[in-house]
């Protein structure tokens, strides 16, 4: 395994973590808001 694989692994890991965290953050915030709003504003 060439030494530059570490950069590849870092790149793929960071990308995965960033997108998963962002998607989870949006969904959690939306869930939180849906709970706090009255029924007529829910999806």
């Amino acid at each position, binding site marked *: 395994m*060439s*030494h*530059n*694989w570490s*950069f*590849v692994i*870092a*790149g*793929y890991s*960071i*990308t995965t973590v*960033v*997108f998963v965290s*962002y*998607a989870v953050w*949006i*969904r959690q*915030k*939306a869930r939180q*808001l*849906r709970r*706090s*709003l*009255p029924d007529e*504003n829910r*999806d």
Partner: protein
Amino acid sequence: MKRLFLATTVVALGVTAVFALWVTPPRAEQGFDAVRLLYLHVPTAWIAYLAFGITALASLLWLVPRTRDTAWDLLAGASAEVGVVFTALTLLLGSLWGRPAWGTWWEWDARLTTTAILFFLYLGYLALRRTGATSDERGKRSAIAALIAFADVPVNYLSVTWWQTLHQQGTVFNKNLNVQIDGSMAFTLILAVVAFTLLYGYLVLERFQLAQLEEGREARELELAIAERLRTEHSEVVPA
């Protein structure tokens, strides 16, 4: 429907990763595996352009009185935020690729600098959206800011041609270079662009719905504040 969209996106990204990491060859002459970052770096940069393009288009639609709708403003904000995430990753992945390829994490090269400017311009745009104002005021000033910020996109794209510094020129659509790309590499790059476009679509959809909820909460808070004010005024007028 949204779950199916998410599932398709995850599968497309998973297949892209398999092809990028195990099927495509390293760069032939050096066994240079860092080239595998190409399948992340290039699509994230292209999708960032797409995101800011959608922001500019939605902003324009908001500014035209005939098509004005709060939904355009919310879409512009959602797309810009997702675009900022893609731009941050473009910079980060470029840096990770640049270290083994150029021997440096960062260089004040034309492409890198204009990408950093793009990132900060849209961070500023997002900050502007959060300053207190009515929906109309926010829509107007953010739409104008989005159109100004978008001017950096063509500058960023053409920077490698205009200044020819460290970053390589565009290769995929460059007719002058007559590039011979390995079949599996070209396929994986196209697949990656499709997968990241799906991811962009999914994230914008989720972020747009969240923005609608935030808008609903603000309207609700305003209603409650008005009701409270009226109740207070009424109790002051009518003696107990």
